[in-house]
Each structure stands twice: as C-alpha cells, then as structure tokens.
C-alpha cells in the first residue's frame, strides 16, 4: 500500500511538471528533429527584442504607426530521424499577468483621466516571407480572441503532413531545412501596426509577443 502511495505521488509530481509548461509553447512529444538549444537546429531572431510605438503627434493618431520588418526570424531545422521531422511556428500574446486579462499591461500611472484601457486585440501583426509560406501571409491580423496567451499560427500543425522546401508556391513548409539554403521559406518578417483611434486612455502600456518553434508528431 505504501509503495502505491509513492507511485501516486510521483505521478502527481509528474503531472505538475508537465503543467508548468502549460503556456502555449509546450514540450513536444516526439524527438525527430534536432534540438534548437543544444543541438544543430537554430531559431534565430536577428532583430531587437523591443518594438516601440510613440504617439506624440495627431497625425500618428490619425494614420497609426506601422513598424515594418521589426522582427525577423530565421530557422534551421535538422532532422534526426529521417522522414519524420515536422514543426510548427506560432506566436502568442502575453500581457505579463496584468488584470484584466484582455488589456495591455499599464506600465505607469496614465497621463490622463479619460478614455479606455487598450485591449490585446489592438496590436496588428503581419507575417511574411519570400515564398508566402506563413498562414495568412502578408495580411495584418489581430489576436481576435482578445485574451492572454491568444495564439496566431504562422506555420500550423499540419497533422502528419510534411511539406519540404523548394516549391516556393505558398505551401506551409514544415519539414527540415535552413534559411541558409532556402531563405524565402525559412525566414519570417514581422510587421507591427497600431491604430489607436481616439478613445484610449493616455499612458504607457506593454505587451509581449512570443514566437514559439516546436516539433510536432
């Protein structure tokens, strides 16, 4: 009886350990691709990790601000088990635990009194590359569910389908390959745009956008 108690305890700890990664970027269940941290695969972000929008002029409020190509992601995915390496790439929004969960984090006390707090579906993102491999390539999208950890797929889980590079026809490429040899399929540019309108409360706000590369079965 004591023995089975230990087993149950181990299983609970195991469950908790798995749930620690319950954010959208969770551990894969297979190991068909090389590791991107200690292995030969690479997930590179060649641009700064900060994107700033400063609305200090009426013209910027009227027309919005677009930061083009502010993030550039480059992938090199090597396979370990031939024919089985597949991956997905996604982004998800994070308001750093701010409440309510559908609003941007307020960094300082707002400048003014009037207006509403900005919500997570305010930021627009556009992902594209030379071959148009991302889902909704070249189109500004929003996190329409307007909740923390809302996900936008860049290369979705194709549920067993593996697309190899080289066609450059807009197919979602998810097999092994490299930005060094197939730049237009393993490089991703991201534009950001904010159209604040006139109903938001003046202040400084922050969110985080996470890009997650993970192997899929």
């Amino acid at each position, binding site marked *: 009886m004591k023995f089975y108690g230990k087993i149950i305890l181990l*299983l609970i700890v195991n469950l908790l350990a798995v749930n620690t990664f319950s954010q959208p970027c969770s551990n894969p269940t297979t190991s068909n691709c090389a590791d991107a941290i200690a292995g030969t695969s690479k997930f590179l972000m060649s641009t700064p990790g900060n994107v*700033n929008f400063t*609305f*200090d002029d009426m013209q910027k409020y009227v027309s919005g601000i677009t930061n083009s190509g502010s993030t550039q992601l480059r992938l090199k995915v090597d396979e370990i088990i031939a024919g089985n390496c597949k991956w997905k790439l996604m982004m998800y929004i994070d308001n750093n635990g701010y409440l309510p969960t559908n609003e941007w984090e307020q960094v300082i006390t707002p400048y003014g009194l009037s207006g509403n707090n*900005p919500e997570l579906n305010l930021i627009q993102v556009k992902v594209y590359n030379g071959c148009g491999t991302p889902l909704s390539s070249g189109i500004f999208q929003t996190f329409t569910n307007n909740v923390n950890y809302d996900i936008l797929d860049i290369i979705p889980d194709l549920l067993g389908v593996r697309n190899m590079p080289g066609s450059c026809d807009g197919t979602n490429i998810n097999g092994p390959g490299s930005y060094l040899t197939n730049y237009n399929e393993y490089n991703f540019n991201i534009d950001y745009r904010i159209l604040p309108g006139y109903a*938001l409360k003046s202040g400084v706000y922050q969110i985080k956008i996470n890009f997650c590369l993970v192997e899929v079965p």
Partner: protein
Amino acid sequence: MKKIILIVSFLGFFSAFSFGQLIDEKNVTVTMDLQPVLQLHMTTSDQVDFVFDDIREYYGGIIKYAATILKVSSSVSWDLYAVGTSQNGTTWDQQMSYSTVVNPNSVSALPLSLLELHQYEANAFGLAGFDYSELFQAANVAIPVTGQNSIYNSATPYTAPLATDKYIQGSAGTGLLLGAPGGSYLTAVPAAGAFSNYYFTIDYRILPGLPATFPMAGTSALVSEALVPPQYAEPGVYTMNAKYILLEDQ
C-alpha cells in the same frame, strides 16, 4: 515487479524535463506610449476690430461673421471654452480716451461681457443652454435676455469654467455627455448641412446702443452688466483678449 514500476515512474518524471527536442522561443516586448495630444487650429486672424464711427453702428451694432474658425483634433476626450480676459479680468483695458471733459457719467470701465459670441454648431456634449448657440437678439428687442451670448470672462482664464458657465463644447465634469470624445476635424464626418463636432465658426457682435450702455451685456446667470443711464461709454480705444482653451475633459 515493484522495482520495475518504480523505475518506469521515475523515467516518466524525468521525461517531462527532457531538453533533447526541438522547442525554442523568442520574445518581443511591445511598448506603446500614448501621449495626450490636443491641437486647436485657428486659421483666421487673431485680431478682430470694431470701429464705431457711424451712429447706425451704435444702435445696430457691428457683427463680424465667422471671424474665427476653430478646428479641433484631440486624442483624448475634451472640452473647449472661450474666456474673455484683461488686466483685471472684468472690464476692457482702455488704451486711449477721446474724451477731454470730466463727466461723471462717462464710464471707461466697460464690462467684458459686452462682447457677444455666436457659435456654429451648438454644444453637443454639454448642458443645454450653456453655450453660444442662440442667435444674436435683435437690437430693438424690447426686453433683452442679458448675457445670453455674452462671453464668459475671468481674471484666471486657465481655470476651467463651472458647469453653469458657457462652453463651446463639453462642460465641467466627466459624466456622460459632459465632454466630447477624442477625434479630429480631419476625419470626423459631419451630418449633411452641418459642421462636425470638431469644427466651429464664431461670430462676434458688439451692440453699444444709444446711449452706449451695451444692453446685452450680462453674466452667465443672465444678470445684466449694462451701464445704467445716464451713464454711457467713454469714447476711446479699448482692448480685451478672447482666449479659446482646449483641454482634456475634466
């Protein structure tokens, strides 16, 4: 058997921490600095002159139609008010007197409220009746509503008026319909035949009357500030300052 089960359980535990798999994450922090922007464009002259050199102008007054055009752009909710001010905040500054005789009925302290304003469009986000949207009253009206169009005046022009004072747009307080929403004359679409809520034309009138007592002058509470005959306005050159203040709704 028990040992095998225990080993399998341990393996399962460590598998949760395995790093030999393709998973990696990059992060971008997005910072948005929304600074309050309030812009008031006045495209018309900043000088409005009234020269009374004909008797008809005394009894009929002088009106300057659309002498001031105001265009508003604001990223926050806003109020707009006009305030007349001078050295003492209550009467016009006399720059020169044409009178050479000392007559106790010749008054040089002319109330700021003798300047009348008329705005297009009416205040859409304030309390009814506390703006300048009423038409100028006829010069020969038997019993004028004194102060109906008189400019709000104050010695502290940057202190926002009370809710019982006139606003061009908005009012004191932040309640519903006490301030106009953010927007711009550049993008606001007006109703047919009207201006938008971000575009105003201002007419000015001075009606001295005969004798020159300024019968329309009065406070926001419609209390007359007209001179009382046999008093009359001392001939001379007078100036005052009309300020248009755009501020966040408060």
